[in-house]
Structure formats: structure tokens, C-alpha cells
């Protein structure tokens, strides 16, 4: 049966991927070319420095004096992972439930296809879509960066593009797990979004709140550490944690789906 479900998944996602690519590329390039005017505007730099610490923590530690700091604050501390998370959670939550909502799952799984195989191919398809989006992001940063002499090495732009993809994976996998366990598209979207917000807040606020501090390392956003990656410090342990968590959640999703009734 080859990789029919994988091909089918990519085919179904291609139009969505085009839209996402355009959005991500335009956004990334726009922020990049904005850099020269920020660099030449000392007022803006003092503005962020003067914000309360809690505010700075939430919007991302803004160091507008370097290109890497600027990109991190404007793109990678919040907006870009948000976009990738929305994309990943959407794919994960809908991978099986959309087939159930449309009623096509009966035909799909009345063939000699196992539920595990279907899920693995659908998950792989989702990862490929996110990776493609990551490549688009990298190219947009590279071109935009070159246009304005951003001065960040291509290897670091590649690393941060990969990191954004990786931080989205555990949440996509969590959405897949919730949808496989409950059969509910809406619940998967809602619960995973809530989990993502909690993880983000935990990572952002932990340095300020003593009781939270020791939990910070439990947040995938702490493993994402965009500031470090842009500064050239991609930690392999973080990469392994992000991928490992995603794999564990996806494996749980397989177990959950194999146990339950398919809906019509």
C-alpha cells in the first residue's frame, strides 16, 4: 500500500500549506527589513528597557541593540512559535477527527490499513508540512536578512527555523492524542491551546515568581530557548526533549485510537 495515506495527507494539506507559507514568509521578511529603522532609533531601545520587568518577560526579553535580539523579540519570542503552534495543533486535532466528521474514516479503515499505520502516516505528513513551513521561514529570513544586512549567519537562521518547527511538534502531538482519545475535534483544539498558553506563561513568568521557578524547565518553551538559538547555542538536549515528547505523545495517540470506537 506504499505510503498512500501520507501522500493523501500531503495532497489534502497543500492548499493550506500555500496559505501558511505566504503568511509566514511575508511576516518574517517584513520584520527583517524593519531592522534598519529600529537600529537607527535609540528611543525605541530605551522604551523597551524602561518597561516593567513583568511586561518585558511577557512580550519577550527585548534587546533591540542587536539584530539577533531584535529578531528574537519581534519574531521568535512569541509570534512565530504562535503561528507554528496554531498550524501544528490544527493538523494534530483534525488528522483523525476530520475523517470522522466527514464520515470518510469508514472507507479508509475498511481496507487492510491498520489504525496505527494510518496515524503514523498522517503524523508524518503533518511533520513534513511543518518542516516545509520551516524551510519557507528560513528562506524568507535569509532573503530579507540579506536585503538589510542583518548580519546573522545562515546557520543560525536555519537553527532558529528548525527550533520553531520543533517547539510546535509536542503540541501538535498533544492535539493528536486528545483527539484520538476522545474523538472530539473541538476538545483537542481547546485543551491543547490551553496547555500551550500555560506552558508559555510558565516559561515567561517563572523567572519572576519564586514558586514557579523550579518548574520552568518542564515547559517546552524553555527547551525552545529562542534567544540562545539565535545566539548560536542550540542545545541538543533541548532538541531531544522536544522530539522525544512529541514521539511519546504520538505513541500514546496510537494506543488511544486503537482502543476506541470510530465515530460516524
Amino acid at each position, binding site marked *: *500500500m*506504499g505510503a*498512500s*495515506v501520507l501522500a*493523501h495527507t500531503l495532497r489534502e494539506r497543500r492548499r493550506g500549506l500555500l496559505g501558511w507559507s505566504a503568511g509566514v514568509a511575508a511576516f518574517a521578511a517584513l520584520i527583517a527589513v524593519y531592522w534598519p529603522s529600529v537600529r537607527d532609533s535609540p528611543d525605541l531601545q530605551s522604551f523597551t528597557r524602561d518597561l516593567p520587568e513583568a511586561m518585558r518577560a511577557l512580550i519577550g526579553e527585548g534587546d533591540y541593540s542587536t539584530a539577533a535580539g531584535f529578531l528574537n523579540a519581534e519574531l521568535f519570542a512569541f509570534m512565530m512559535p504562535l503561528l507554528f503552534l496554531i498550524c501544528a495543533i490544527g493538523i494534530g486535532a483534525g488528522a483523525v477527527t476530520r475523517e470522522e466528521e*466527514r*464520515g*470518510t*474514516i*469508514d*472507507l*479508509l*479503515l*475498511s*481496507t*487492510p*490499513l*491498520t489504525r496505527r499505520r494510518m496515524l503514523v502516516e498522517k503524523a508524518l505528513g503533518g511533520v513534513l508540512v511543518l518542516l516545509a513551513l520551516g524551510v519557507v521561514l528560513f528562506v524568507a529570513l535569509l532573503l530579507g536578512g540579506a536585503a538589510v544586512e542583518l548580519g546573522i549567519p545562515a546557520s543560525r537562521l536555519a537553527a532558529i527555523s528548525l527550533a520553531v518547527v520543533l517547539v510546535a511538534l509536542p503540541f501538535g502531538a498533544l492535539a493528536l492524542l486528545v483527539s484520538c482519545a476522545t474523538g472530539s475535534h473541538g476538545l483537542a483544539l481547546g485543551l491543547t491551546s490551553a496547555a500551550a498558553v500555560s506552558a508559555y506563561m510558565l516559561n515567561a513568568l517563572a523567572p519572576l515568581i519564586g514558586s514557579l521557578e523550579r518548574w520552568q524547565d518542564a515547559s517546552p518553551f524553555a527547551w525552545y530557548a529562542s534567544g540562545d538559538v539565535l545566539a548560536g547555542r542550540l542545545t541538543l538536549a533541548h532538541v531531544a526533549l522536544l522530539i522525544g515528547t512529541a514521539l511519546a505523545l504520538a505513541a500514546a495517540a496510537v494506543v488511544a485510537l486503537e*482502543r*476506541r*470506537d*470510530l465515530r*460516524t
Partner: protein
Amino acid sequence: MTATALQARISTPATSFPAAIETQALGKRYGRHTALVDLDLRVERGEVFGFIGPNGAGKTTTIRLLLDLIRPTVGEARVLGLDARRDGVEVRRRVGYLPGDLALYEDMTAARQLAFLARLRGMPELDPRPLAERLALDLHRPVKALSRGNKQKVGLVQAFMHDPELLILDEPTTGLDPLIQHEFAAMVGEARERGRTVFLSSHVLGDVERLADRVGLLRAGRLVLVDDVGALKARVTRRIELHFADPPPAGAFAGVAGVDAVEQAGDRVTLTVSGPVDAVIKRAAAFRTLTLTSHEPDLEDIFLQLYEGGPDGR
């Protein structure tokens, strides 16, 4: 009929050759709602079995249990001698299935949809064209542009195209026009001639009685009867309305063989007849008969007749 007599009818003696379908005490509950209770069903290889019952009786639940799309609360199901759950992949390889609530990928053409399903079966060489031609289905139109009937044809083609040992068809004639229904009946007949087993469900007895050798009647999640189609039809009563040019004498139809009840209102006579209507026709011929209308028994009538005052399957 007593419960024991029913049971005797339902369980045919087991043979060494595995049945096409065999369920034991199969049951399915959704929370408090019971969809299927204690189903003991045996469908032999090579027969066409009609599974009938009103909507919501549990037909689709049974079928989805056989395909391992849902899991039983109790009991077990064997298909072609294999465990429906443990050997699900092998079962589905050898079964062709038409879902009752058929849904297709709307943005594909029929050809692409069928090619996709053929690849999933590991049989990319399957050619849907001969079947599509028989059913007058245009393979090159996108599914979303197809009528209900044409979508149903796509469903039939994918169920038949790998010539499976067992065809499980849930409400197969939905949306088909009479000409195509005729072609479908021929396809079922040919499958039987090739030794295939056909299990088809319907909420209309008429759909099934022309095709099936045996029928099982399901009501409120319980299998209440399994019988030969002929025996079932002979047993049920039908209503016959006669309209005469002149009112026949009172008692003209009393005592005619097969007539259970007579209602007469002037020149119109309504009869309740069980079994052959031969004697009724011969008696009517003695008068100037203007019209004769025979009402086919519907499922509800059959259930009422079989269970009037009886245990009624509850």
C-alpha cells in the same frame, strides 16, 4: 412463536467449514443506550443474507462491529473464520464493504478515489472501469459534483472491485434508480454464482426479498427471526382491496382459503390474506372486478403480526 423456537431457528448447526459470519452473544452499549443485544448470527458461505429491520434497529452497529470499526461491549464476532478484532486486517483484506452512510472525499474524482482505495488494498492494478460502465458511472467527475445515486455507485464499485469473498453492503440500494437497482441485483447474483457471500442490510423488505436466500429480522437491537425468504413471505399477511362494479353479496369472501378477515363497504371489499392469494383471485373472478390492489406487507406489519400479544422481543 416461543423464544426457544426462535432460538432453534436462529442457530443452524455448526459445520467444520467456518461460516462467512458468525457472532456469539454479540452486544453493544453506548452509555445507557443499548444498540445491540445478544446477537447470535450465522451466515453460511455462498449465501445471500438479508439483514432487515427499521432504522435504528442495530443493523449498522452490527456491520461496523464485523469490520472492527467499533468494538463490542460483550461477545465476539468471527468473519470468514477469523476474529473480527484480532485478525481485523486480514478480515478487511477479504471483505468488500459499502458503508450505510457513505461519505467520499469530495474533492477527488471518482477515479482518483477508487485508485486511492485500491492502493490501500495493496492492489493498485484494480480496474474500476468495467463495474463503472455497468452502473453507468462517469469516473472523471469530481465526487462533489455527483448526485446521491452516483455517489452510491462509487461506493458499490469500491466494494465489488476486488471481488471479495464476502460483501457487506449496508443499505446498498439507497438512491439508485430502478434500472441501476436491476444491474446491482445482477451483480449480487453473479457474486453468488462465483461462490461469494453477500450480507446486505435494508430497512425495506422489498429491497432484500428479491436478492436474498435468507433474511434476519432485527428490531430494537435484537435479532427476532431468521428464515428463508419464501417461508417468511408465506407467513406474513397482506391486505387486498377489491373494487367491484356491483356490490357482491355479503359473505362472498367468507371461508375462502387464506382469508383471515373481510371488511365490506358496498362495492368495496378489503381482505386480510395470508399465504397464496390464488383462492381469492378465483373467487373475485366470479364478480365484475374493477380494480385489485395488493399492499405489500411492510416491516412494521410483519413485526406486529409475528409478535402480536407475544413476547415482542423485549
